[in-house]
């Protein structure tokens, strides 16, 4: 990352922190001052953030040193080997060697080694940008990718339809989210039952989950599965049916929710079972389709991405079924299932799937292999073992059995292992290519996603412990956490993958300043959204701890809710830019690819001649 960008980012971060803290300072009654003077939870948060950054930097430096040492060892070995070789040489051989060396030492440059007498011509059209007036630039010129990956037209169409539908649900889902955010500021915005807060809230979450993120992941995965299996997709029709089923599920589910028909209010289980069944069937069809494609692969090994993608599909099939089966869901049985389902919905579906996508798209963008295959495998199995057991950490201090709560807390801390393994793997893959970040419009999305993967997940682990539960449970802190992760990780990674692949299959790149606009608005929006809510949520929890009248905790949140609405607006604007970028890349892609096919054919004919 260039210095400028870095400092810019830091500046905004500071600005946001300052403004989110400001209202609290301005009305600092005795409570706030007491709590500011104490070593305080915010101190803990700051420490955590600081230590995370520092650990990361230190970790990288250490790794660097370690590898340098490894290299040095190797050099030493080579040197010793050479020594031994020389001792074993015959006399004639030594003479020839010395002669060669003498020649090398007396060599002089003629002056035309790098140039030639011929005229410079760019016959293959490699040079795209010529400037006669080199000025220092504020933003680096982004590299254009001229590669057009040959993709089966059927697959291409499929991917574009998945991504297109997903962008539609993104706009709708986050539009609804923004509307809900405004209702915190103006509770009497409207009096229409279908648009009331309680009914629309699940519309927001379910639309971005099952509509936006799921369709986007599946679309991107179709490319990965076919490409890394070096084979055609087993069956296009199955994927089209799934596309229809998922969209139908979201349309119907939302209409039911707005009409006041929901499954019982459990988070992400709000769609009634006949509607959710559509989604589960779609999952099974896609799983079968992907599995068959992988089984018929024209390559010996199953690429790690496919491990993750198949795992996510299998696990989600199981967990959705278990979440909806009725036999054990009366009384608090439902609550056990709720903890299991709501947490795994995030961890086994979105997180696992997205990690699988990173394992393909990040190396593909960097044009280098993933740093460690083994770490990826370790992360997958630990993800399965640990993540599955921690659902009950949403119900700490509830009447659920104490042992369930303890298991959840212990394995929440255990999540440090897969998260660290994953983060290390991705950052080590990016290592040595940091300079690419300012030159690429894709890598910043990846970097943000990966950093949030670490920070958001670690924060989630810390949130599962005792004292943090006292302060943060039931507050807006949870809302901030879920956006830090679902938005900071999942959305950013999905956008990174989308910007990586779409230009390569449609042959048209988005305008880089618009991608930049999307990136910065989304990132600033996320900060403006989450930081005030984390701060306000903490104050809210402290107010409860101090036994103040409940309304205090509502009134104190008001400035932070305004910040949330501001952040949400920025995010929403960025999504419109994203949708435009997607449209821009899609437009006329058929003609362009036809054109490209003709030129490449002509080129190959020329070469043959």
């Amino acid at each position: 990352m260039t210095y400028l960008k870095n400092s810019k980012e830091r500046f905004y971060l500071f600005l946001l922190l300052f403004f989110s803290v400001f209202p609290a300072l301005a009305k600092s009654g005795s409570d706030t001052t007491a709590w500011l003077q104490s070593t305080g939870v915010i101190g803990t948060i700051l420490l955590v953030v600081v230590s995370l950054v520092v650990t990361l930097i230190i970790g990288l430096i250490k790794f660097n040193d370690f590898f340098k040492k490894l290299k040095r060892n190797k050099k030493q070995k080579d040197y010793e080997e050479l020594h031994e070789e020389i001792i074993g040489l015959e006399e004639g051989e030594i003479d020839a060697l010395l002669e060669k060396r003498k020649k090398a030492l007396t060599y002089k440059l003629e002056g035309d080694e790098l140039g030639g007498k011929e005229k410079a011509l760019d016959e293959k059209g490699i040079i795209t940008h010529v400037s006669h007036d080199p000025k220092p630039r504020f933003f680096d010129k982004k590299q254009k990718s001229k590669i057009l990956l040959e993709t089966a037209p059927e697959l291409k169409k499929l991917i574009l339809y998945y991504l297109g539908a997903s962008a539609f649900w993104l706009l709708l889902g986050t539009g609804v989210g923004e509307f809900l955010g405004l209702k915190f500021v103006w509770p009497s915005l409207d009096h229409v039952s279908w648009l009331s807060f309680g009914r629309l809230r699940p519309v927001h979450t379910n639309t971005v989950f099952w509509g936006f993120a799921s369709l986007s992941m599946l679309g991107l995965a179709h490319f990965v599965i076919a490409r890394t299996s070096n084979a055609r997709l087993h069956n296009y029709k199955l994927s089209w049916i799934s596309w229809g089923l998922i969209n139908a599920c979201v349309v119907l589910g939302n209409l039911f929710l707005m009409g006041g028909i929901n499954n019982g209010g459990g988070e992400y289980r709000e769609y009634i079972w006949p509607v959710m069944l559509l989604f589960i069937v779609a999952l099974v069809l896609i799983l079968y389709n992907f599995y068959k494609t992988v089984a018929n692969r024209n390559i010996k090994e199953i690429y790690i991405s496919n491990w993750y993608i198949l795992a996510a599909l299998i696990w989600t099939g199981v967990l959705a079924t278990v979440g909806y089966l009725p036999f054990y869901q009366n009384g608090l049985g439902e609550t056990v299932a709720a903890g299991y389902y709501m947490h795994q919905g995030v961890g086994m579906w979105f997180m696992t799937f997205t990690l699988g996508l990173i394992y393909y798209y990040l190396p593909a963008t960097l044009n280098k292999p993933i740093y460690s295959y083994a770490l990826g495998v370790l992360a997958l199995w630990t993800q399965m073992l640990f993540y599955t057991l921690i659902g009950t950490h949403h119900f700490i201090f509830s009447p659920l059995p104490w042992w369930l709560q303890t298991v959840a807390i212990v394995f929440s801390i255990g999540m440090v292992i897969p998260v660290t393994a994953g983060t290390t793997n991705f950052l080590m893959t990016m290592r040595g290519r940091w300079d690419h970040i300012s030159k690429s419009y894709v890598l910043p999305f990846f970097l943000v996603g990966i950093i949030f993967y670490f920070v958001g997940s670690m924060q989630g682990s810390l949130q599962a412990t005792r004292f943090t539960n006292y302060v943060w449970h039931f507050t807006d802190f949870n809302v901030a956490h879920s956006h830090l992760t679902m938005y900071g990780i999942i959305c950013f990674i999905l956008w990174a993958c989308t910007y990586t692949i779409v230009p390569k299959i449609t042959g048209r790149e988005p305008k880089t300043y618009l991608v930049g606009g999307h990136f910065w608005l989304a990132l600033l929006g996320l900060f403006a959204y989450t930081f005030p809510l984390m701060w306000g949520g903490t104050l809210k929890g402290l107010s409860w701890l101090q036994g103040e009248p409940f309304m205090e905790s509502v009134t104190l949140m008001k400035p932070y809710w305004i910040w949330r609405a501001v952040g949400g607006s920025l995010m929403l604007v960025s999504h419109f830019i994203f949708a435009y970028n997607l449209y821009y890349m899609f437009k006329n892609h058929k003609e362009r690819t036809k054109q490209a096919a003709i030129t490449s054919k002509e080129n190959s004919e020329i070469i043959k001649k």
Partner: protein
Amino acid sequence: MFDFNTNHKALVWTMFLVFLGLTIWIAVIPAFQIQNEYGPLPEQKDLTQEERRGLEVYIAEGCVACHTQQVRNIEMDKMFGKRPVMPQDYYYSKKRQDVWRQSPSLLGSERTGPDLSNVGARQASEAWHLLHLYEPRAVVEESVMPSYRWLFEEIDSNYVSESDLVVSGIPEEFIKDKSKKVIAKNDAKALVAYLISLKFTDLPEDMEAPEFIPLKEKDKELAGGSSESSSSGVDGKRLYESTCAVCHQSNGKGVSGAFPPLAGSGIVKDPNPTNHIKSVLFGKDDNPQYGPMQAFADELTDEEIAAIINHERTSWGNDAETITPEEVKEIREEGK
């Protein structure tokens, strides 16, 4: 055979079976156990038909998005109930609704509004609930709760029949057509019936309630709270805010047409505090201008009632003599 790198069958089956095993261990078995282990408490009552209808409205409108029904076993949750919830408390309410809809997720994960496990004891007034549902800001000025206008209808005041439940005390700013009256639809009545039914069941004598875990001293310091202002201390103003202000308002002015003012009130200013203490202890319903007041004898201790009454007698321009907890105790023992 188990070379996952090349054997897709082994890979997929391992993922499936191990995950299924973990799922059964961590979710399915505990869910079965907890479902089958707990029946209702001895004195627990099933929901009436109307209350169950109210619960359905509660779920349909998404109330669980902002309201928990989960008094946790930690000290800070004491403000919402005298004991932590137990699995038995949910026996009747958390049942599968019908073939399409599962048992309602009542515990909740967000407390944007207060916990409702015991709201029926805290706020037993039907008039208040109706007004609050129609326009929350008519009774709680700072509330951010949506108003549920579609559970009510406006009809011409000439057509109001005796069986209609009229919402009284709606401030003028919230009514468009002054010639009309707002009456509650059946859904609103059911929802209010359900809310008022939310009360902790008393435990039989041989059964011990789970205890609240007190906050560690170290954590208390972290939270910045000093011990004298904690919930265990008796602070009349604070208690008034959390118990009485929803009706009589923080400024003591009440809500015209629904809840009487305490500022300048004859009962409050009366040098003889008997009537004042009695209304708080046993409730009051003798003024047709206002809704009935609920009894607080079971909700508040003598110390707490004395503190609240003293706050009322010395605030908003009131200047009556203060009372002692002993006086409350006497009247409590005397009974109505």
